[in-house]
């Protein structure tokens, strides 16, 4: 079943005349992990933000369950975002340094107004336990946490609204390799348990290969190749994919 259908999505940053996303068309199926790989600056994160309407697209369409996300009102979009979430790249920048971890998670419920009072705290504890942290973290500040722990908080926050689809924007690229494996395990486990759908963005082909079902290779705003992980890794067609595979440090 198609969860999201994206058709010829365009975004140009006018000031710099950069076509960050240049005609992206693809579908994401329910329950799959779709990888998006490419160098810095090729438009991966812009695409992620376009899908969630965190920035506005110039043209194109994004269908989520028969609704064109680009045509619905802001309040409808806010409701829809309950099921479309994102885990950001840099866990040092994506948590408010002045908020306690409990507040970070409870804020999600304040925005969506679906859970109130005491229930919020219980939910937050439950989420922290899901991601391998415990109740003790409620009162901590993000500065007291290590990179891995912060990223777990980021994951808990994304899970707070019980989403169907999560964009993972380089969730492990700033972590040590041992912590990276822990976080990948957590993401794989959550995906299987909750039947989540991921759009997994990374520049590390090792990471992509270990978690994704399908991969799309992006270069300067365009998809140059896409296919199952098997095909892309075993039998790359496009020159750029070959270069990426050659430079990747695959053991």
């Amino acid at each position, binding site marked *: 079943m198609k969860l999201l259908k994206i058709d010829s999505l365009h975004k140009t940053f006018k000031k710099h005349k950069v076509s960050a996303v240049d005609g992206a068309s693809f579908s994401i199926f329910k329950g799959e992990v779709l990888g998006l790989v490419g*160098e810095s600056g090729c438009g991966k994160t812009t695409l992620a933000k376009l899908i969630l309407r965190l920035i506005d697209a110039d043209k194109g369409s994004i269908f989520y369950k028969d609704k064109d996300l680009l045509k619905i009102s802001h309040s409808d979009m806010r409701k829809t975002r309950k099921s479309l979430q994102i885990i950001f790249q840099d866990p040092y920048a994506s948590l408010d340094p002045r908020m306690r971890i409990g507040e970070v998670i409870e804020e999600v419920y304040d925005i969506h107004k679906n859970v109130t009072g005491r229930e919020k705290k219980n939910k937050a504890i439950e989420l922290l336990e899901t991601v391998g942290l415990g109740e003790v973290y409620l009162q901590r500040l993000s500065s007291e946490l290590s990179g891995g722990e912060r990223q777990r908080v980021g994951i808990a926050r994304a899970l707070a609204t019980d989403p169907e689809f999560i964009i993972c924007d380089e969730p492990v690229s700033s972590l040590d390799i*041992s912590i990276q494996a*822990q976080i990948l395990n957590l993401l794989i486990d959550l995906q299987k348990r909750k039947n989540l759908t991921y759009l997994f963005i990374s520049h590390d*082909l090792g990471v992509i*290969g270990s978690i994704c079902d399908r991969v799309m290779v992006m270069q300067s705003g365009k998809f140059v190749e896409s296919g199952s992980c098997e095909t892309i890794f075993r039998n790359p067609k496009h020159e750029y994919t070959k270069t990426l595979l050659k430079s990747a440090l695959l*053991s």
Partner: protein
Amino acid sequence: MLLQIKNLKVGYRNIEVVRGVELNIDKGECVGLIGESGCGKTTVGLSVTKLIPERIGMTSGEILFEDKNILKLNPEELRNIRGKKISYVFQEPFSSLNPVFTVYEQIREMLEKKNNIYIQIAEILKSVGLEKIIGRKNVYPHELSGGMQQRAMIGMAIASKPSLVILDEPTTALDVTIQRQILDLITGLKNKMNLSILFISHDLRIVFSIADKIGIMYAGKIVEYGTKEKIISSPSHPYTIGLIDSIPSFEHRKQLFNVIGGKAPLFSELPKGCKFYPRCRFRIKECLKKEPELKDISADHFSRCILTSEIAARRLPKQNRSI
């Protein structure tokens, strides 16, 4: 032996973060030093050039470079070594280049002979693959991409024709394709100039692709040391095994990683006995008695674990993995 580190201990205030490191680097050899953030690997690198200020860091042990103990040298003698015989490339090129001087000026500063400066600089730029900026004397660091900045840093490091270069996570901030280019550049320079390299990184994959010998550091000590081939084919310390099992790859598709649980201990609260005990999958009671010594396993291969011989057999096959 170009560099010999003997029983190096470094303490910040009263907390020892490097707790007796032994490491040798031969002429023309690349030694990789691997470990998690905060295991003391950067401190080892900084100690080699005595860059840790005496008022914060208490250093003991010996660092013999060309048979002189660096830790005993006076500032004048150090000046003749730092940047000339031993140079350092830091992790983030953008924060280690000076933003208010041009790249040309910064490379010129490193040159010993001040004749034919522009020819010398052009040669350096060419050797690090920065042909594009040859002759462009007014290029500032911010005008370069991350990869080019790191090339400029490497250019500065080799400008004085050093015999040892310390590279502290030189590719961590870079993209995969650029990472590969920088690694190829370093290997090329190493062969051409017969450089010795101390390569510090947390990523085994990078170190595997460049180092001849590898030391794995945990909680301020080396827990396994050996040639690259030995470490890849028969890792013997549970920590090394955990690190290797954490490498993501296509072959491990959709399987859970056999991860090292928990996180590295704080230096102020190190556990008794083996420091890896709380996170170790193979632990037994004996591990708590005392911290194991670095034992010979075979030629050029040492491990700090009392179970070394049994561990390889007990390493779990991939399909039996769980969180």
